């Protein structure tokens, strides 16, 4: 792959639609994010944010429209396929297995094995898990603890560490801050800023805290009832404007 001068979109969705039975979760979505850019995706519950993320990560396939990855049209067949291209995701439900220890969750479906006998390389995975967690700076007492014993915020931190440590080209974060305390949330935001400054990764961040979004994102898209109704650079908008936009809808729909 050639250098793209940082201008090219890492991922672009064109006219993407997705329905679940009668529910039109996404309608004619156009969205793109560049290298070194953090795109904030906001919207009410049920607006379709997670569905969009799941399309970008190959978990769902779009009914209509297409995706371009690094300029090339692509059909993401599966999460594994997307991962192989460098698309990493923190799912809203975190995709953690409570019965497995931290280090195995950190390597879920990317386990390290010996050759030729494909036995797990537990020691190496533990080492890397510790390294990944330390590099983020979140304090997890033990990489061998079962994830079910950890707090919600710690679990989120692990999910973020898992996706960041994979050296992705495209990082999709579906409400990674929801259960985090102020300190841990701050750490994750700082981490995102660092990744942004490094300039080699594109990030889509879903969050309900608009001030965090305006702070860390370069651009904000608003998703309402499956459509993108707003696309502005963060410096051209404000928390107040975003709140106004979201509330305006309800003021309108309050009118009989």
């Amino acid at each position: 792959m050639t250098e793209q001068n940082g201008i090219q979109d890492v991922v672009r969705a064109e006219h993407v639609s997705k329905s679940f039975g009668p529910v039109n979760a996404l309608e004619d979505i156009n969205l793109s994010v560049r290298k070194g850019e953090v795109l904030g995706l906001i919207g009410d519950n049920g607006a379709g944010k997670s569905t969009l993320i799941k399309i970008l990560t190959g978990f769902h396939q779009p009914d209509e429209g297409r995706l371009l990855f690094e300029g090339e049209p692509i059909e993401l067949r599966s999460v594994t396929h997307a991962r192989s291209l460098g698309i990493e995701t923190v799912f809203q439900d975190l995709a953690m297995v409570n019965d497995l220890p931290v280090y195995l969750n950190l390597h879920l479906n990317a386990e390290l094995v010996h050759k030729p006998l494909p036995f797990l390389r537990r020691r190496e995975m533990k080492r890397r898990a510790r390294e990944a967690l330390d590099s983020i700076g979140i304090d997890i007492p033990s990489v061998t603890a079962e994830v079910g014993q950890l707090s919600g915020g710690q679990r989120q931190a692990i999910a973020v560490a898992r996706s960041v440590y994979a050296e992705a080209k495209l990082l999709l974060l579906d409400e990674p801050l929801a259960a985090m305390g102020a300190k841990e949330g701050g750490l994750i935001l700082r981490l995102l800023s660092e990744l942004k400054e490094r300039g080699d990764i594109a990030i889509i961040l879903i969050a309900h805290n608009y001030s965090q979004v305006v702070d860390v994102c370069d651009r904000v898209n608003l998703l309402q009832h499956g459509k993108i109704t707003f696309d502005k650079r963060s410096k051209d908008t404000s928390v107040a404007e975003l709140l106004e936009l979201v509330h305006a809808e309800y003021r309108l729909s309050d009118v009989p």
Partner: protein
Amino acid sequence: MTRAVTSKGSGRKDQPDQRSEHARGPGIPFWQGLIRIKELSILLVTIAAGIYFSVTSVGFNSAENYQTIAQYLAPWAIIAAGQVMLLICAEIDLSAGFVFTLAPFILILFYNNGLPLFLALVGAVLMCTGIGVINGLIRTWLNIPSFITTLGMAFLLQGISLIISNGSPVSAPTDSWVVDVFGGSQWSELIWALVIVAVMQTILSATRFGVYTKATGGNLVGAAESGIRTKRVKIINFAVISTFAGFAGILQGIRVGSFDPTNGGFNTMFFAVAAAVIGGTTLLGGSGTVVGALLGALLLGIVYDGFNLTGVSANAFNVVLGIAILVAMTLNVYMTVLRKRISSPRRSV
């Protein structure tokens, strides 16, 4: 970069390697480490039962009797080895006992049609694998709960066994090295059971497929989001238990010297489930061990045999079995809580 925040645990931070490799951590007493071994409680109970029957019944400690116990436990352990994997996937196979029943008759069918005994055996076992695949496909692609799927399959297979056998036993083939290897010679059934348990425990705890199995049962959606092909994992595990069940049925038929259409069935299947549950596997998915199930089968075998020797009726055995399952379940839950409390990390956040 963000060192300032982590400096809280600075004493440990300096030696991350030591920290991760000695995960149990320093300063945890020996006995607490032992409690973490899930199989320990069942092992102790098994030993206690062995001692009890050694003392109370004369013939218990003899090579002959050990062999009897082995004959009880081998089929349970073999089927349980597959059932544990399936239970960890949060699925169950109620048809395994009837695969056990049917397999020898498939073998006879192949054998009578001119196939050499060994190939007839392989063919019969592969047919059983196919039955498991069908179970798995119905479960995953038609989305029918495994309880219903395999219940239907159980009756279907029972009917087929009775039809192709005309309801009466046939004598097993003899005079072949195949007979000796697969059930005929003295300890062969037990050896097969131990090999299968060892292989399955290794797969469960040391390979990616084991992780996938736990992930599929522990968090189906999360596993799928991680890219694990959960349907495939389930289908494979359905295929594995059917394969083992058929194999166990053939081993037993050859050992006894006759294939009986009233062998196996729900009884055998539920003993395997009981062995798994007593050995620490829950029905909720996500956790369990094959070695535990082997110990569970051993315990059941010892008690069954001990009761026979001391002249206690089979009815009383069922009472004990029922209590054992309930106690094991309760103990399992309680031990898990205890284990977690002891190993629970000191929260530093």
